[in-house]
C-alpha cells in the first residue's frame, strides 16, 4: 500500500511548478506595485483570480492511501466546515482514480501528513484551487497502480482497464490494494492526460454529502468532541472590556474549589485546569481579577473613529474623473453596517498534549499550518515536533482563520503533564471574537439624462486582511489598502464612464477580521441600494437600468447573464402589491457573479423574506446540490445580517453576549422558497461559498423601499 512514509518520487508534478505562485506570488512584483495604478491592477488580480494551490505535499502517493481492504483514504490539505469540500474532492478523485465514492474516506488536514495548505481553508477556494492538481494526482496514481499491477499480473499496462478500484485485462483482475502491496521502492509515472470533463461520472452530479450519516447520527467528529486518555478540562479568564489587560488575579478561593487541579498565571492570562469543565467554570467564578482598561469605548466613540476621512486613504478603483461632492446634480447618500459576530455554534477551543518534546493538538481550525507555527514558536519547539490535527468544524465563517488559542491549551498541558481540553464560553466568544468590522460608506452619483455618468463608492472599514496571521504584513504596505475590506467595493458596471472607489482604513481597538464574504456584504449593500435609488430617480426599471450600464467584455457578459436570468426566473417586477414587493440586486465576487430577486412582506414592524430567486455563475459545478446548499446558507446568513445582527459597545464592553440577545435569523425568518439557478460561464470551478452573500441585503432594502417608500441605509434594517 502506498503510505505516506514510503520514499517520495523525485519527479516534480506540473502543478508543483505552478504552485510556486499563489496569492503571495504577487509579492514578486516588488516595488512596482507601490505605484497606485499597479496597486489597483494587483488588487483586481487578487480579487478575480483563483490562486493555484500553494501548499506542500504534492506527490500523489502522499495523498492516496489505499488500505488493505481496497478502500481509499484521501489525505488532503483542507478542512470541512460545512461547505461540502470533502464531498467535492471525493467526486473529483473518484472520476480520475476510478474508485467508487463509497470506497473513499476524506480525512481533515493534519500537519504530520506533510500536506499542508499554504494559507488556509477559506476564500471559497478549496474546490476551485484543488480542481486541477487533484485530478492530475489522481490520474497519476491510477497510472502508477496500473503499471505496478501489470507487472504482478504479467500483462501489458496499456491493456488494463480500471473501475471501482479493480484492474481488469487479459482475463485477469486485481484490486488496487494488491497491485501496490509490499512495494518498497517506486517511481511515480508522468501525469497522463486528464479525462474530458464530460466523461466524468460523479463530477457534476448531486452526490449526497459523504459526511451526512455521521452528522445526522451525532458521531463525535468535532474539535469539541476530542478525547484523550486521562484528559483534564480547562477554562481561561479573558477580558470583558475592549483593550483590557490583566493587572492582578487573586486565585486563592478558586484553588480550594472541588476538582481543581491547577491554576496557572502566565503572560497576562489565567488558566483554570480541573477534572471536569463544570468544576473549572465554578472555580473561575471564584477568581477576583483586576483589569487595566485604557479607555472605555462607546458606540459614539467608534462612529467618530471609523468614518470616511479618517485613517489610511487609498483609491482602489479609478476610471475617468472624480465628482465634486457639492457639484451641481451630484447626489450623496450615506450607508453604515455594524460590528458583526461570527457566532459559529461550536466554540473555539483545542485539545493539546505535550509530552517528551512533542505536541499533539486536535482542534477545529481553518489554519492547520499557521496553528502549527504559532504553537511551535510559543513553546520553543521545531515545527516538525508539533502535529496539528484538524477535525470537522462546527462552523468556520472565517472565525477560525486564527486559532492562536491552541497555544494556551498546549501551555496548560505542559503545566499539568496531561492532555488538556480548553474552549471558550459563549460570552467569551461574543466578547473576544475577531469581528466583522463596522463600515461607513458614502455613495456619490451624477445622472446625465437617464444614464449614470459618474458613480463613486467611498468606504471606511476596520481590518479584514490586514494584521491577520494568514496575510503577510508586507502585503498591506505593498497594496496600500486592505484587500479584504475592498471585496465588492468596486463598481462593476463598465459603461459608467467615471467610476471610483476609495478606501479609508483604520485598525480598531478590538480585533476584526474575516467574516464570510469579507467586505462584499456591506459594500454591495451600499452600492446596489444606491443604484436602485438612481434607477427610481431616472424613472427606469432597476433591471433595465443595470443592464444598460454593462459593457461587452467577458465579465460584463457574465454579469449580464445572471441579471437577465434572475429577473426572468424570479418574474421580477418593480411594482409593490400592498405590503409585498420584490427587490433586485447583483454583485460579482471572486469572478463569480450573482443576482438575487427577493420577495419581501411587511407586517407592522415585521419584515419577512418570503422567497429568494438566486442565480449564480461559479463556473463548472462539481456538486450542484452542495452549491445550492451554499447559496441557501449564504442567503439565510445574509438575511440575518441584513435584518437582525448587530454588536454594540457599552461602557467599554461588547454586547450582546449570547444567542437570543444577539438577534439572528431563525427558522421563522427563513424564506419558505429559495430557488437557485446555476449558470456555467467559466470552464473551471470558481468560488461558491461567499459570492451569494453579496446582493442579499441590498435586494431586501430595495424591496422595502417599494413597500414603505423609505430608503434604509443602515444594517440591520428596521422598518
Amino acid at each position: 500500500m502506498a503510505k505516506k512514509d514510503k520514499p517520495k518520487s523525485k519527479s516534480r508534478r506540473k502543478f508543483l511548478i505552478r504552485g510556486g505562485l499563489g496569492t503571495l506570488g504577487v509579492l514578486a512584483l516588488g516595488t512596482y506595485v507601490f505605484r497606485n495604478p499597479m496597486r489597483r491592477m494587483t488588487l483586481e488580480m487578487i480579487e478575480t483570480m483563483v490562486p493555484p494551490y500553494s501548499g506542500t505535499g504534492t506527490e500523489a502517493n502522499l495523498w492516496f492511501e489505499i488500505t488493505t481492504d481496497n478502500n481509499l483514504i484521501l489525505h488532503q490539505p483542507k478542512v470541512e466546515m460545512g461547505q461540502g469540500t470533502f464531498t467535492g474532492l471525493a467526486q473529483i478523485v473518484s472520476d480520475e482514480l476510478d474508485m467508487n465514492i463509497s470506497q473513499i474516506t476524506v480525512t481533515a488536514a493534519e500537519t504530520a501528513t506533510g500536506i499542508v495548505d499554504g494559507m488556509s481553508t477559506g476564500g471559497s477556494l478549496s474546490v476551485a484551487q484543488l480542481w486541477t492538481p487533484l485530478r492530475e494526482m489522481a490520474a497519476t496514481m491510477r497510472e502508477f497502480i496500473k503499471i505496478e499491477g501489470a507487472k504482478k499480473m504479467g500483462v501489458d499496462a496499456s491493456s488494463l482497464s480500471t473501475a471501482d478500484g479493480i484492474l481488469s485485462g487479459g482475463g485477469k483482475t486485481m484490486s488496487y490494494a494488491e497491485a501496490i502491496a509490499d512495494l518498497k521502492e517506486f517511481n511515480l509515472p508522468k501525469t497522463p492526460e486528464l479525462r474530458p470533463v464530460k466523461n466524468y461520472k460523479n463530477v457534476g452530479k448531486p452526490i449526497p454529502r459523504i459526511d451526512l450519516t455521521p452528522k445526522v447520527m451525532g458521531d463525535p467528529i468535532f474539535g469539541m468532541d476530542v478525547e484523550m486518555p486521562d484528559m483534564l478540562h480547562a477554562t481561561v479568564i479573558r477580558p470583558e472590556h475592549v483593550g483590557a489587560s490583566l493587572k492582578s488575579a487573586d486565585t486563592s478561593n478558586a484553588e480550594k474549589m472541588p476538582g481543581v487541579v491547577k491554576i496557572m498565571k502566565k503572560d497576562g492570562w489565567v488558566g483554570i485546569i480541573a477534572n471536569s469543565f463544570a468544576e473549572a467554570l465554578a472555580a473561575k467564578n471564584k477568581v477576583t481579577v483586576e483589569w487595566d482598561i485604557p479607555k472605555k469605548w462607546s458606540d459614539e466613540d467608534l462612529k467618530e473613529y471609523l468614518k470616511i476621512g479618517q485613517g489610511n486613504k487609498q483609491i482602489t478603483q479609478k476610471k475617468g474623473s472624480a465628482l465634486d461632492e457639492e457639484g451641481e446634480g451630484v447626489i450623496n447618500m450615506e450607508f453604515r453596517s455594524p460590528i458583526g459576530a461570527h457566532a459559529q455554534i461550536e466554540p473555539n477551543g483545542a485539545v493539546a498534549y505535550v509530552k517528551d518534546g512533542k505536541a499533539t493538538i486536535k482542534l477545529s481550525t481553518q489554519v492547520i499550518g499557521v496553528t502549527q507555527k504559532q504553537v511551535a514558536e510559543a513553546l520553543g519547539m521545531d515545527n516538525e515536533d508539533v502535529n496539528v490535527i484538524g477535525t470537522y468544524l462546527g462552523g468556520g465563517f472565517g472565525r477560525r482563520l486564527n486559532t492562536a488559542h491552541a497555544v494556551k491549551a498546549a501551555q496548560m498541558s505542559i503545566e499539568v503533564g496531561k492532555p488538556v481540553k480548553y474552549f471558550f464560553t459563549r460570552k467569551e466568544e461574543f466578547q473576544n471574537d475577531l469581528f466583522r468590522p463596522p463600515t461607513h460608506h458614502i455613495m456619490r452619483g451624477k445622472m446625465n439624462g437617464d444614464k449614470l455618468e459618474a458613480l463613486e463608492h467611498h468606504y471606511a472599514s476596520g481590518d479584514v486582511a490586514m494584521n491577520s496571521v494568514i496575510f503577510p504584513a508586507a502585503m498591506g504596505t505593498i497594496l496600500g489598502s486592505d484587500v479584504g475590506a475592498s471585496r465588492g467595493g468596486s463598481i462593476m458596471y463598465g459603461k459608467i464612464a467615471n467610476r471610483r472607489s476609495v478606501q479609508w482604513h483604520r485598525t480598531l481597538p478590538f480585533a476584526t477580521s474575516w467574516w464570510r464574504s469579507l467586505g462584499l456584504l456591506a459594500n454591495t449593500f451600499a452600492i446596489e441600494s444606491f443604484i436602485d435609488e438612481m434607477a427610481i430617480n431616472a424613472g427606469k426599471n432597476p433591471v433595465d437600468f443595470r443592464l444598460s450600464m454593462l459593457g461587452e467584455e467577458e465579465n460584463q457578459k457574465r454579469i449580464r447573464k445572471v441579471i437577465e436570468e434572475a429577473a426572468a426566473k424570479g418574474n421580477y417586477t418593480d411594482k409593490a402589491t400592498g405590503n409585498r414587493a420584490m427587490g433586485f440586486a447583483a454583485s460579482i465576487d471572486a469572478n463569480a457573479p450573482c443576482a438575487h430577486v427577493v420577495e419581501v412582506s411587511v407586517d407592522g414592524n415585521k419584515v419577512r423574506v418570503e422567497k429568494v430567486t438566486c442565480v449564480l455563475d461559479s463556473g463548472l459545478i462539481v456538486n450542484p446540490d452542495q452549491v445550492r446548499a451554499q447559496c441557501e446558507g449564504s442567503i439565510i446568513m445574509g438575511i440575518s445580517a441584513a435584518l437582525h445582527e448587530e454588536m454594540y459597545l457599552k461602557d467599554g464592553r461588547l454586547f450582546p453576549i449570547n444567542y437570543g440577545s444577539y438577534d439572528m435569523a431563525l427558522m421563522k425568518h427563513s424564506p419558505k422558497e429559495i430557488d437557485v439557478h446555476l449558470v456555467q460561464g467559466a470552464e473551471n470551478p470558481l468560488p461558491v461559498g461567499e459570492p451569494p452573500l453579496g446582493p442579499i441585503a441590498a435586494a431586501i432594502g430595495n424591496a422595502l423601499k417599494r413597500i414603505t417608500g423609505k430608503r434604509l441605509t443602515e444594517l440591520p434594517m428596521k422598518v
Partner: protein
Amino acid sequence: MKISFTINGEAKSVEVSDGNSPLLWAIRDGLDLKGTKFGCGKAACGACTIHVDGNAVRSCSFPAKLAEGKEITTIEGLSKDGKTHPVQQAWIDEVVPQCGYCQPGFIMATAAMLDKIPNPTDEDIDKNIINVCRCGTYYRMRKAIHRAAKMNGNTDVQ
C-alpha cells in the same frame, strides 16, 4: 453526588461534584456521549437538546440532579432496533446538514415536536423549532420536518 437514570434504554449512574451542574456535561464527559453539543450554556441555542421523559430539554441549563430516575434519550439513542429514526432519515433524504454541529439538537427538538404535533404546519414549525443554525440550513430543515411527518404515517401533510 451520584445520579442514576435511564439513558437510551440503559440504566446508568454518573458522579457529579455539584448536583446543580448541567446535565450536559454528565452526558458528554461523564458518559462520553458526544452527540449532545455545547453551544451557549444558557439554553439560548438548542445545540444541547435531549429528551427527558419524552420532552425536549436544553441540557446545558438542566441541573444534573433533576435527571434522577428519569428516562433520557440523546441523539445516539434516537434510532431504535437498527431502524433509522424518521427524522434522521428525512434529514438524510433532504441532505440537510452543512457543518452539522447544531443538527443533533434540531433533530431532537423535531422528534419531540412530532410526538406532540404529528402533522405540523409551517407555523407550528416556526413556533416550536427555535434552535440556532449558523450555516442557515433552515430551508432544508423545514422540508425535512414535513417529510418526517409523512414518514410517520401522517399522509395528510399540507
